[in-house]
């Protein structure tokens, strides 16, 4: 979900909330007779349905169809914004190859960083990574499993080294990096000597 979708969600929810507070507040005051003099306060609220001139008009079904299609497309687009994949397929690399361009597969970069963390044998027991587009910024998103007794400083140093090497390898300094450390579940109980 990008920032625009998140903002749209908040604005729509906020407007709906404020409308309910205003409408509900007025209805409470109306039902209890608390409305000041001069405010609109009918004896009963009557809704008598859609005017027959509207429902019986020959163009009514077409307007309904058009409105339905517009709402369907709008709802679908809004929904897809929440679920669309953020994975980046390929990454262009700086350089001047003869007659071509340098392109690195986004998944390969993620897998490579994950494999490097795992192979270093410094507390990381498993890792996976991917390159994603996050609010228009490239982010190398890695999850690394660490042992419960892992030295966090050592793992942190390792992450810095691998990220530095990824930067040199790609030549791209605009990629941000986020490595999540996941603590492996509790190991089998150890015998304790007393």
């Amino acid at each position, binding site marked *: 979900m990008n920032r625009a979708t998140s903002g749209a969600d908040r604005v729509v929810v906020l407007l709906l909330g404020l409308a309910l507070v205003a409408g509900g507040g007025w209805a409470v005051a109306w039902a209890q007779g608390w409305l000041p003099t001069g405010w609109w306060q009918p004896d009963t609220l009557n809704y008598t349905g859609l005017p027959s001139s509207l429902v019986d008009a020959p163009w009514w079904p077409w307007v*309904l169809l058009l409105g339905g299609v517009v709402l369907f497309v709008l709802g679908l687009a809004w929904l897809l914004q*929440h679920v669309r994949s953020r994975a980046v397929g390929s990454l262009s690399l700086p350089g001047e190859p003869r007659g071509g361009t340098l392109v690195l597969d986004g998944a390969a970069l993620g897998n490579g960083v994950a494999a490097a963390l795992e192979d270093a044998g410094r507390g990381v027991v498993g890792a996976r990574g991917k390159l994603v587009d996050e609010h228009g910024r490239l982010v*190398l998103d890695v999850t690394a499993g660490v042992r419960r007794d892992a030295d966090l400083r050592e793992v942190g140093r390792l992450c*810095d080294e691998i990220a530095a090497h990824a930067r*040199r390898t790609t030549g791209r300094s605009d990629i941000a*990096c986020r490595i999540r450390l996941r603590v492996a579940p509790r190991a089998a109980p150890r015998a304790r000597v007393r």
Partner: protein
Amino acid sequence: VSADSTADVRTPVDHAGGQQSEDASGDTLPAARVPRSAARAGWLGVLLAVAVLGLGVLAAYDATTLLGWVDAEPVGTPVLDTDLGVRPDTATTVLAVALVLLGLWLTWSALQRSARRGARLATSTGVWITYGDLERLVNGTAEDVDGVVSAHTAVSRRRARVSVQMTAPEVREYVQVAVTERLSALQSPPRVTVIGNPGHDDGGEAR
């Protein structure tokens, strides 16, 4: 140049066989922010999007029945065409109060800022760990201290509260030191509070 499925980003250290050599802190990838938990407005947005989509389907269905393309009765139009009268009575008040409460909850949800999911390590690039994983880590640290029977931890941004069952009073201090040292790898370590309770090791696994 195209990589197959795994780009080789192993450091020279790895190629050389495991010795640590370079300090990468100055020239590493910049840190991305620690993610925040999904805002409630996001889930409400999904529900509203589905509602809008459903409304569109209903309107289009009604239109096709009214145009005679589908041999069925319209569903939405008769509902819109129903007479409705609302009186200022108790039932209306109750319903209106419910709507106000729902509106307040929606407003609060829209303005609520989602919380960070974890804490950053003191590294140059972005390395983070969830509070739940930190609790597991701290539990392990506390339980490794001699004299601790069991430990339970709650970690938040500012505070780590460790409850331990221990066999001697001085163990509390050892746990405090061990946990504080463990959490010092974080960029902003939380304040550590250790609560010691007398406990007895039933010796379940040590026979």
